């Protein structure tokens, strides 16, 4: 099993990197974890444009001149956890709601109408409200309409992931939030999510269940993003070695204002985020890299083709948000890119890229 990295040691490894290490990483044919440490170290900052160029070439080689599009459906904002940074935290006084199967289907129909073939079902962690039976029922209903269905819910067992895969779920996203065990305990104040190790081992359970894809990630802004990035790289490499037939994606949610007003503990600039994205692309040319609507339109447009492979678009982060007039009531975080999917698609096309809504079909599964 992937063991928790020693966060302090990661910081030290990165801190020791020099510009010579960066140059070596940039001239190497393939990058190992020492090269990744160099690429996301302060010593690599002057090389950012060179890294960007290298990252863009690798991304085009592996993924073509395309950007995949997806949209989230927030099923429920009930949550039994108290996470200091999250708008859904159990102690936050917000309107709670869990969509019925019909309501979820209505939300999905709106997204389908807008051209989406890939949806991400998101829910707060409340096993009694959003359990595996509920998720299975929704997947079965939505499967005929969508080529890919991802979920981002509480960690489940391998057997449950197998059931959901059979029902049409193709991918699971489960972010560690932070690989720093000390910080993890500081921000996860109550609920099942306090269990660092159970969460850390979740991506392996997802892959062991035969899911097509597993998404990992870290919530940037809690602690040293560089060490977080190296931990992500190690986790990614471990998953590759142990589950070669499951694809891996990495997400980079940067803390944004939420109800409960949690300010980032360590600010992460766009410069920093870009360095991390380019570094991970050089480290693993095949990994899918996600950039959500947490980021602003200007930044997302600028990053098109430079490393990220998948964008969300036209997102609403509150349950029932697509069908309701007020899309911000009870949302998890406020979005930074408010554009519609048509507008995002036009921006992608303007860069000479194809917006892609489908890269999988359930027929491949049988």
């Amino acid at each position, binding site marked *: 099993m992937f063991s928790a990295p020693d966060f302090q040691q990661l910081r030290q490894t990165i801190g020791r990197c020099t510009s010579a290490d960066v140059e070596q990483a940039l001239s190497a*044919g393939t990058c190992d974890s020492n090269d990744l440490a160099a690429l996301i170290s302060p010593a690599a900052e002057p090389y*950012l444009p*060179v890294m960007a*160029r290298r990252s863009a070439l690798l991304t085009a080689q592996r993924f073509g001149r395309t950007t995949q599009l997806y949209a989230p459906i927030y099923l429920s904002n009930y949550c039994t956890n108290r996470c200091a940074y999250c708008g859904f935290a159990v102690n936050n006084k917000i309107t709670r709601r869990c969509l019925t199967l019909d309501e979820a289907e209505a939300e999905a129909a709106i997204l389908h109408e807008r051209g989406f073939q890939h949806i991400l079902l998101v829910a707060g962690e409340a096993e009694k409200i959003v359990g595996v039976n509920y998720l299975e029922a929704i997947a079965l209903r939505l499967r005929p309409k969508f080529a890919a269905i991802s979920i981002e819910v509480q960690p489940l067992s391998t057997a449950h992931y197998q059931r959901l895969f059979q029902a049409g779920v193709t991918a699971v996203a489960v972010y560690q939030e932070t690989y720093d065990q000390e910080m993890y305990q500081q921000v996860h104040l109550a609920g099942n999510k306090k269990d660092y190790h159970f969460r850390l081992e979740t991506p392996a359970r997802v892959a062991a269940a035969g899911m097509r894809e597993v998404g990992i990630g870290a919530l940037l802004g809690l602690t040293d993003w560089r060490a977080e990035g190296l931990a992500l790289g190690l986790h990614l490499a471990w998953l590759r070695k142990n589950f070669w037939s499951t694809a891996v994606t990495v997400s980079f949610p940067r803390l944004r204002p939420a109800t409960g007003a949690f300010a980032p503990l360590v600010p992460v*600039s766009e410069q920093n985020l870009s360095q991390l994205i380019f570094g991970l692309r050089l480290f693993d040319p095949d990994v899918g890299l996600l950039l959500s609507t947490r980021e602003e339109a200007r*930044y997302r*447009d*600028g*990053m098109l083709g430079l490393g990220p492979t998948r964008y969300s678009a036209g997102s609403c982060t509150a349950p029932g948000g697509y069908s309701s007039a007020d899309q911000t009531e009870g949302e998890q975080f406020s979005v930074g890119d408010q554009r519609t999917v048509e507008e995002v698609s036009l921006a992608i096309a303007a860069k000479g890229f194809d917006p892609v809504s489908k890269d999988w079909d359930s027929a491949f599964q049988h």
Partner: protein
Amino acid sequence: METLKATEELVRAGFIVLPYMNADPILALRLQDVGAAAVMPLGSPIGSNQGILTAFQIEIIIAQARIPVVVDAGIGAPSHAALAMEMGADAVLVNTAISVAGDPVAMARAFAQAVEAGRTAFVAGMGSRSKQAHASSPLEGTLAADLGFLS
């Protein structure tokens, strides 16, 4: 495929299985999945002394494997063994080249030295190869992306 079936069967029967195989990266992963203790991709046809003609595939096998990779077959000269070790192989298996040598003992010693040299070079970290000459400051003048959009 027969190698895969045989490995699965033998592992189930309690054997430690070290399958000799074509240098196929996916087959190597599948052998690993069914419990092979190592994979032994061929460098070239057995007994041919042609050296490592499957280097590209073997490099991929080595990068992906979590079990030892032993390059077997085709290794006809100490330099071939050194190359396999420089690529990161865990071991090489040599028979014909030593057994048919004029002085097998001396040849075995030569192979041992080559294996040691190759392993030391791999651990030391090999520089990457290029078809073109590189200036001593390799990144000067490298094409760079415009990041003017960053706030």
